[in-house]
C-alpha cells in the first residue's frame, strides 16, 4: 500500500462488471480507494453525493453514456479530472470527450492495466 498518495478516492463508471472489478483490484493495490458505478446515471448520482479525486469513465454504457456524464458534469461544473476509457479508439470520440472536459483518453484493448494505474498516479501526484 502506497501511503504517499493518501486515500485518494476514485470513481469507476463502467458497465462491464468484470472490468470494473479489475480496475478496482489494480487501483486498490496501488493504494487508492475505489467506488464503482455500473451506468452513467448511477455514476452521476454518486458524484452528487460525495467528492472524488478522479473518475475513470467508460464511454458506451446503457442509461446515459460517457458523453452524457461529461455533459452533465460540465453543466453542474463538477471539475474532477476524468480519464475516458473507450473500447473502440475512434479519433472523433477522443475529440468529443476532450471537448467535453475529459483529460485523458485510452483504449481499453490497447492499454495494459498497469499503464492506466501509472497514469492515474502521475495525475494525482501533481
Amino acid at each position, binding site marked *: 500500500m502506497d501511503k504517499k498518495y493518501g486515500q485518494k478516492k476514485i470513481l469507476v463508471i463502467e458497465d462491464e462488471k468484470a472490468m470494473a472489478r479489475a480496475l478496482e483490484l489494480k487501483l486498490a493495490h496501488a493504494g487508492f480507494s475505489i467506488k464503482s458505478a455500473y451506468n452513467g446515471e448511477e455514476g452521476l448520482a454518486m458524484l452528487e453525493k460525495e467528492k472524488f479525486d478522479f473518475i475513470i469513465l467508460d464511454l458506451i454504457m446503457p442509461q446515459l453514456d460517457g458523453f452524457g456524464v461529461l455533459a452533465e458534469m460540465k453543466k453542474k461544473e463538477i471539475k474532477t479530472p476524468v480519464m475516458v476509457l473507450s473500447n473502440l479508439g475512434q479519433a472523433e470520440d477522443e475529440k468529443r470527450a476532450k471537448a467535453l472536459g475529459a483529460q485523458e483518453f485510452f483504449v481499453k*484493448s490497447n492499454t495494459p492495466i498497469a499503464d492506466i494505474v501509472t497514469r492515474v498516479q502521475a495525475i494525482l501526484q501533481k
Partner: protein
Amino acid sequence: MQSAPIPENEKERLESLHKLALLDTKPEERFDRITRTAIKVFKVPISTLTLVDATREWFKSCQGFPAHEGERAISFCGHALVTKKDVFVILDTTKDSRFADNPMVVGKPFIRFYAGIPLLSADGERVGVFCIKDIKPHNEFPENEEEIFKGLASWAELELNSHNLSLALSSRKKIEEKYTKHVKELEDSKKAILNVLEDLDVEKVNIDAAQKRIEVSEKKFKSLYESSRDAIMILEPPTWKFTSGNQAAIEMFRAKDEAEFILKTPGQLSPERQPDNQLSGEKAMKQIKMALEKGSNFFEWTHMKINGKSFPATVLLSKIEINGRGVLQATVRDITKEKEIDKAKTEFVSLASHQLLTPLSTVNWYTEMLLAGDAGKINAGQKEYLEAVYRGNQRMVELVDTLLNVSRLELGIFVVEPEPTDIADLAKSAIAEQKPQIDAKKLKFSFHTTDVPKINVDPKLLHMVFQNLLSNAVKYTPKGGSIEFSISLDKKKRHINIQVADTGYGIPKNQQDKIFTKLFRADNVRGKDTEGTGLGLYIAKLIMDHSGGKIWFSSPGGSPPKDGQAALGEESSENKGTTFYVSLPISGMQKKEGTKALG
C-alpha cells in the same frame, strides 16, 4: 417623158423584193432559159427578167442587153410594173408621149417595141417584170402571142418564187434544225429536271427515313425518360430553373404534377443549408458551374420534397444540347435506403467490434494482473501458460481492430485528414515500435533518407502502412537478416518513394498476384511461427488506393514494376528477400470526409 410611177405599196413591195434575195445575184440558167426562149419565140433581140428596186431596175436575166441594170425612172419595166392590164404593150415607143423622148428610145438601144408582164412574189407584191423589147416597132401584138407571152411570164414567176420557195425550204430547214435543236435542248433540260426530281425524291425518302429514325429514337428516349425510376429533370439557362421533369421526378419530390415542379430552382427543392453548412442555393450554382465546365458533375446532395421533407440523394448533372441550346440534365437518385443500409452496416460493425473487444479487454487485464503477481506469486510454468493466453488474446484484439478498419475502408466511410507531415519522422516512429522484435531477432536495420519535403498526408493512415510493411519485413526475415528502409524523392521531384527491403523468405512467384488480397498469407510463410491477421497488406493497399498513391513489390534490385505486381520475370524468389515500394504524390493525400477514422 414620164418617169416610172412609184406604186402606193412601195414599202411592202420592196420588202417582198428583198426577201427574194435575188438582187445582185449571179445569172442563173433557169432564168436565162426563159429569156432565151422569149427572144426566139417572139423574134426580138432583147428579153429581160427585171427586178424593180427602189431606184433601179436590175436584170436577173438579160438577153441582148449589155448592161445588168438601169435607172428605174427611165425604165419601161418601171411602167409595166404598175400596169392595170395583164400585159403592158407599147407597139411604137415614138408614138407614145410617155416614152417618145426616153433616152433609151432616142439613144441606145433605141427601143421601139416593148411588152412586159409584172411578176408577183409569193406575197402577192409586184417585185419585177418579164419583158421583151424590139428595136423595130410592131403593128400588133396578137392575142395568141399574148398568151404565149403570159405563159413565159408565169414560168418566170414560178422560177422567181421557187427561189423563194427553195430559200423558204432551206430556211424552213434551218428553222427545223433550230427547232430540232431547241427540242433537244428542252429534252435535255427535261431530263435534267427529271434527274433533280428523282434526287429530290431520293432525298425525300432519306429524310423520311431519318425522320422515322428520329421518331423511333424519340419514342425510345421518351419511354426511358418516363419509365425511369430515377428522377430526370432539365435545367435551362440563364436562371437554371427546372423546365421539365419526368414522372419519377414528380413523385420523388411529391409534386402534384409537372407544373408544380417546374420553374423551381434547385435551391427551392433543398433545405436552406447542405450538410457542410453551405447555403444550398449558392452551393447548387457552384455544382452547376462545374457541370458546365467539365461536361458533367456527380455529387451527393440533400434535397427537399415539396412537403418539406429532406432526403439524401446523388445527383448527376450532364451538359446536353436540345435544339442547339446547352442545357443541363439532372439525374437524381434518392439514396435514403443506401444511407440507411450503410449506417446499419457501420453500426453493426461498431457494435460487433465493441461487443467483441469488451471480453477481450477483460481477459487482457486479468492476465496482466496475474502475470504481475497481483493475485499472488506465480511460478515459471504458470507464467508460460499465462503468457500464451495473453498473446492469443492480443492477436484477437488485433484481428478485431483490423476487421473494423477493413470494414470502414470498404465502406469508404473512413476519414482522411491530411496535414503537413515529415515522412521520415513518421517512419522513425513506426520503426521504433518494431525495435523489440528487431533486437530479439538480431536483425540488421538501416534507415536512409534524402532531403524530402513535408507533404500533406493523414499521418495515422500512413503510419498504418509503414507499420504493416515493417512488421512484415521483421516477421518474414529470419534471424541475422537485414532490413533497409529508405525514403527518397523521384527524379522528376513529383513523388516521394519509400522502400522497405528485406533479406527474408520472399514471395513465391505463383502467389504474388494474391499478396494484396484479404486474409492471404503465402504458403511459404504459413508454417513459420508468425502472428498476424492476413489483412495488413490488404489494408495498406486500400489506404494507398484511396489516397492517390501506389504500393507494389519486387525482388531486391529489380526496377519498380506496375502497381501491385512483380515485374515480369523478376519475381521475389524465395529466400532472396522482398522489397516493398510505396509512392506518394508530392500533392499528398486528398482530404476525405467520412464518418469514421481508421484506428
